[in-house]
């Protein structure tokens, strides 16, 4: 039995939490979805997560906030940011701060797979 890498999805948008895990499973990953950064941090998945797919804008703790928090906790999980805001200027800054990729919604399944592959290579 192949042990699938755990990919955690943190997004406040329900449709993302519904659709993205299915696609990730089709791509061969194990998936956990969380509605907020706080929920993710409180879960026992943090240590097992091989890649974090993280929404940037969320109520409460935002994606970058979570990134900083994980850095502080020395939990170096590769992060692929996803955002519905088409603001190109955020991407370089996020990559600079250690993100593997920043995908703008809507993104294709291949772009997602490439980003995941890159993330898993990092890890």
């Amino acid at each position, binding site marked *: 039995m192949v042990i699938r890498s755990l990919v955690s999805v943190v997004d406040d948008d329900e*449709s993302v939490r519904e*659709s993205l895990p299915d696609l990730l499973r089709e791509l061969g990953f194990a998936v956990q979805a969380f509605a907020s950064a706080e929920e993710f941090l409180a879960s026992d998945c943090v240590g097992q997560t091989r890649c974090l797919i993280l929404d940037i804008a969320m109520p409460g703790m935002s994606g970058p906030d979570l990134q900083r928090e994980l850095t502080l906790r020395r939990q170096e999980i590769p992060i692929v940011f996803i955002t519905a*805001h088409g603001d190109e200027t955020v991407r370089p800054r996020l990559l600079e701060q250690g993100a593997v990729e920043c995908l703008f919604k*809507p993104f294709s399944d291949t772009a997602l797979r490439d980003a995941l592959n890159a993330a898993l290579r990092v890890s």
Partner: protein
Amino acid sequence: MENEFSRVVDALPGLVWTALPDGRIDFLNQRWCEYTGLSVKEALVVDEAYGRGWQRAIYPEDLPELLERWRSIRASGQQGEMEARLRRFDGEYRWFLFRACPSADASGKVVKWCGMSIDVEDRRRAEEALRAREGRFRLIVDGLPALVTLRTPTGDLEFANRRYLEYFGATLEQLKGWAWGDNFHPDDGAGVLAAWRRSVETGLPCDIECRRRRADGVYRWFHMRGFPLRDTEGRIVLWYLLHTDIDDRKRVDALLVGEKRLLEMVAGGQSMSGILEALCHFVESTASGCYCSVVLVDPSGTHLEYGAAPSLPASFITSIIGRPVNVDSGPCAMASYLNEQVIAADLKSETRWAAYEWCPMALAHGLQACWSTPISSAVGKVLGAFALYYDKPRTPTSLEQSLIEQFTHIASIAVERVQSDAALKRSEVFLAEAQHLSSIGSFSWHVATDEITWSEQLYRIFEFDQGVRMTHELIDSRVHPEDALMCREVIERALGDGSDVEFEHRLQMPDHSVKYLHVVAHGTRDQEGRLEYIGAIQDVTERRRAEEALGQIRSELAHVARVTSLGALTASIAHEVNQPLSGIITNASTCLRMLAADPPNVDGARETARRTIRDGNRASDVITRLRALFGKKSATTESVDLNEAAREVITLLRSELQRSRVILRADLADHLPPVSGDRVQLQQVILNLLLNASDAMSGVDDRPRQLVIRTERDEGDRVLLTVQDAGVGFETQDVERLFEAFYTTKSGGMGIGLSVSRSIIESHHGRLWAAPNDGPGATFSFSIPRRPEGVRGAHSLGAIWKSAVTDAQQVMRNP
């Protein structure tokens, strides 16, 4: 013989006596002695003097005259009579007539006097009574306040009372010598003579008014009446002629006639100069010998103006007019200045007005006296002066003073009336002009008589010919057919209780153009309780058009503002659209993969396809909402739930606010009543306020970017929506500037949001305001009336009309 004679004489039923030529009584008959109670001896002898004893029976006071008379009878040798009172035996004196006849001998010498004493007491009494009566009559007639004459049946003068004699300054005898007509006014004599002759001929009373010349040459008016006095057989024995002095009454009558004529001229709107000239002529004819002038004080109150002076030389009056109103420039100027009468009785000795050499000027024109009296208005303002001039020195008599008073009064009425007429005309012109400029016409409607009066402007508004008689039918022919029923209902309801009316309606003109009218009318009742409406009608077509144009501009501006905020929302919109798009693509990818698997995961594919559709719908919803909010659309009126409207805006803004790290708290009241208005416009305002609040907090990092949107019921059936931020706030002095178009505190904004928002809220009869918070930030609020229940009810005519207009506009735009 002697005894025989004595017996006969004694038997006579009278008192008989004889006397000697020297007057001594030598015989008294027995009756004489019996009557007087004297014996024969006593009657013949007294104090040894023979023949004088009878004298003791005569009333002592009558005796000297009796003896004198007796002497003169004897001296005449002729028969004579005398009267004296004789004492009866009982001591009572009665008047007797003593009649004596001489008896002569053959040579003609009187040898004896034969006499009789006859009791005339009753006759004397009657005569005295008559004399007393006559005396009383004369007293009465002389005392009558009338001139009285008695004339014979043929008209000859017989008697005139004292007043009559005094009036003519003549005795009765002199008057009898005057010819008829001598003392009548030349204009009256012939008429009076004819009337008098007719009365004498027919015996009918005479009644005529005439002037008669007094002793001093003055004619006075009399009312002359003649009555015939008839005897028992109806023959005229006497004419009484009664003259009553009616001169004062005649003068008053003449004054009244003159006054009436002058006042008629005033009432008839004659020119002031015409009226004043007539006044002068009238005064001159009434107070003969005078010259009359009226000068007026000019509108500035500083100089004299020409009024009237028809009989004075032009050079005289022109040297008066234009003089300053003061005490020095002349009597009229002085009277006007002091508001007091100025009497200059003798200009030769007059010392006033020397500075202006007024007296020499007047004297050069032959005037020697001037009486000037101020003409004052009813409220005491001096209008001018009324002056009488004489060519001899004169002081006014009390009669003349009262005339002056009367004429001054008439002059003041004339001047004041003419001036107020002029002022009235002026103000009427102003009013007409003002009505014309403001497109307001006025009207009155007497309900009982259906009498309708229109101002000129109202004719113009309705486009009827000036002066056409107004009827309801005529008015109805112009009222817009769609408003006719409403107009009728409004008027009928008002007539029910006479209440005031205010409503708006349209006119449809013959060329099918439409006018909008605003009608305001006030109901009043006259003394008999009859209803009358007085009102004003304003043509508000231009205003309506401007309002419509304004509405259009407002919606353009709102669109501009919306487009502006669209820019600000791009990211948010992208987020809203990208979110479901992302779901769609992810789901579709998953679906493909599930179908491509071996075996294909059909159930999973079906589920992902279902989610694809859902997300597609979600994207479509976003687009619909965006179009609703940002599409250009004209205003509509509907029932709006502000909570729901706010929630939709919040949904649209959610991600934008998240991105700006704004914490939004929605505190929306339950059971909020709906408001009436344009949903999208109101949402636009809410959006604007939320975006502004968010922007205001963009630089805030030391405190939560807390944004609270709250709805609640407000006082007076209103709904309040507030947006409270914790941003930079604003300075109190800037609070009103916030709402000015193009005022902005933001570097990137156009600043049009708040001014447009305010105009939107005001078009919803609401209010939008801002206030700084106690802590950081500011609160923006708007309050708008809740949707009235039964808005189409009869209470709000304006609302009916407005909604009708809006409907019509809708129909016109979307036929």
